[in-house]
């Protein structure tokens, strides 16, 4: 079943539930016509209408999943963020796409350290303490923020891919159970829900150099090597012995699936909120403080404390 067919499939499940319920109660069914030799057509129609009423709303149970997020949309966002990281890392190296390599431009900060070696004065001390020493930690943390965003996009794609697979499994097995309900050996089946196991922690990052930050990066379990899933796949066995039992099992599975999606979304939200809180609460971990020198005026530029200071040699 393709995703676009879910609505039609849901309608077919409802119709099958009605027909199988009637057939179990002894009504005949042939090419869209329900019959019973001991009843008039009007009497049969009344029974059909009552039965249809009992199963009204079965197709609508699938509605929340018909217009869900498209996983491919998150894939595109994730790829774009990867491209951004790659662009930053590869600046000046002529690489494209998401191929990543060290950016030698970032390492030139070491050259700056050497160049400012003979520089003395308050501005020089501030530049060394607030900018040079913190440079590795701040750039690492900025990368981490992008990786958190990329991981969240990847996790979203994973959640909705798993949600689609799970609702497809529910629809598929419910229909099969209804089809097999009156055969010689109707077996019990189990719905397989995979959202809880679809996302996990790819890794936590701790920066060094006195700037310490631990945040969780998420990812889609199937796409990220080493990702540790937050939950397990869940099997929900159900009885395929009567139409109402099958429909009730579908309702239970959909409720469970929605719960899994909400829990997974909360994990993603937690990860993003933690990143946001870190930026809001410790902006110095991500952005070097504005140098006082930047606000210098012609009057203060040569000041002993607020000015440039002096150079030896």
């Amino acid at each position, binding site marked *: 079943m393709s995703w676009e067919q879910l609505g039609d499939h849901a309608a077919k499940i409802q119709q099958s539930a009605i*027909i199988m319920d009637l057939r*179990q109660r002894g009504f005949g069914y042939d090419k869209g016509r329900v019959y019973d030799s001991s009843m008039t057509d009007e009497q049969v129609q009344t029974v059909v209408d009552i039965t249809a009423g009992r199963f009204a709303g079965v197709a609508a149970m699938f509605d929340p999943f018909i217009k869900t997020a498209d996983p491919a949309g998150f894939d595109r966002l994730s790829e774009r963020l990867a491209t951004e990281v790659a662009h930053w890392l590869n600046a000046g190296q002529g690489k494209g796409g998401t191929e990543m390599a060290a950016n030698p431009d970032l390492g030139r900060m070491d050259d700056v350290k050497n160049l400012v070696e003979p520089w003395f004065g308050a501005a020089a001390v501030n530049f060394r303490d607030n900018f040079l020493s913190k440079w590795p930690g701040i750039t690492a943390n900025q990368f981490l923020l992008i990786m958190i965003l990329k991981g969240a996009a990847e996790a979203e794609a994973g959640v909705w891919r798993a949600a689609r697979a799970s609702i497809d499994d529910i629809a598929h097995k419910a229909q*099969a159970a209804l089809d*097999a309900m009156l055969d*010689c050996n*109707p*077996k019990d089946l189990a719905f397989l829900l995979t959202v809880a196991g679809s996302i996990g922690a790819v890794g936590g990052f701790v920066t060094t150099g006195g700037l310490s930050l631990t945040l969780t990066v998420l990812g889609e379990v199937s796409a990220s090597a080493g990702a540790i899933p937050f939950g397990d796949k869940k099997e929900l066995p159900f009885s395929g*012995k009567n139409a109402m039992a099958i429909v009730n099992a579908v309702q239970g599975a959909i409720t469970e699936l929605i719960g899994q999606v909400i829990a997974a979304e909360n994990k993603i939200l937690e990860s993003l909120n933690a990143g946001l809180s870190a930026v809001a609460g410790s902006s110095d971990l991500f952005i070097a403080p504005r140098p006082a020198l930047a606000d210098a005026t012609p009057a203060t530029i040569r000041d002993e404390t607020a000015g440039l200071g002096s150079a030896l040699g």
Partner: protein
Amino acid sequence: MGELADRVETMRVRATAPDGSLTAELYDRDQLTLTFHNDYYRQCDDDDLGRRLAAVASLLWVARTREYERIYSDVTGDYSTGEGPPATERERDWRAERDAIEAHGASEDGRVRVRAVGLRNWTVTIRPGTTRTLDEQQFIAAAGQAAGALIRDQFTRLAALSNKYYGNDQP
């Protein structure tokens, strides 16, 4: 209905008598046709034909069950075959009654009668003189009518039993 029902509805299975005298084919759920080999129909007597048809019917239903399970596995991903032990007393009772279902079918002229208990023990009774009265094609049509009637009877009884044990009013 769904893919499983559609595929079961259209599946075809066949079985041949151990001595190769006749082949039966089941299709469209309850349609049956026969093919006689080596001019067997012209040489057989009614009782012998009845015994051979019963043997072929048994083989045909085994083939039907096997094909059904293959399709079921294909559609559901459940590759377990056969039945495990009953999980409840109700299931045990249901199986006992199911295996005791006695289904019947007869041709429109009543010359060919088929009986099956639990779809395992088959009896085919052919009214004396039938093979000398009906030509091969007429007999094949009569056998098909009897087999179709039995299959429909079996599933009607199965639905009633299912309703008795697992209908919505059951706990």
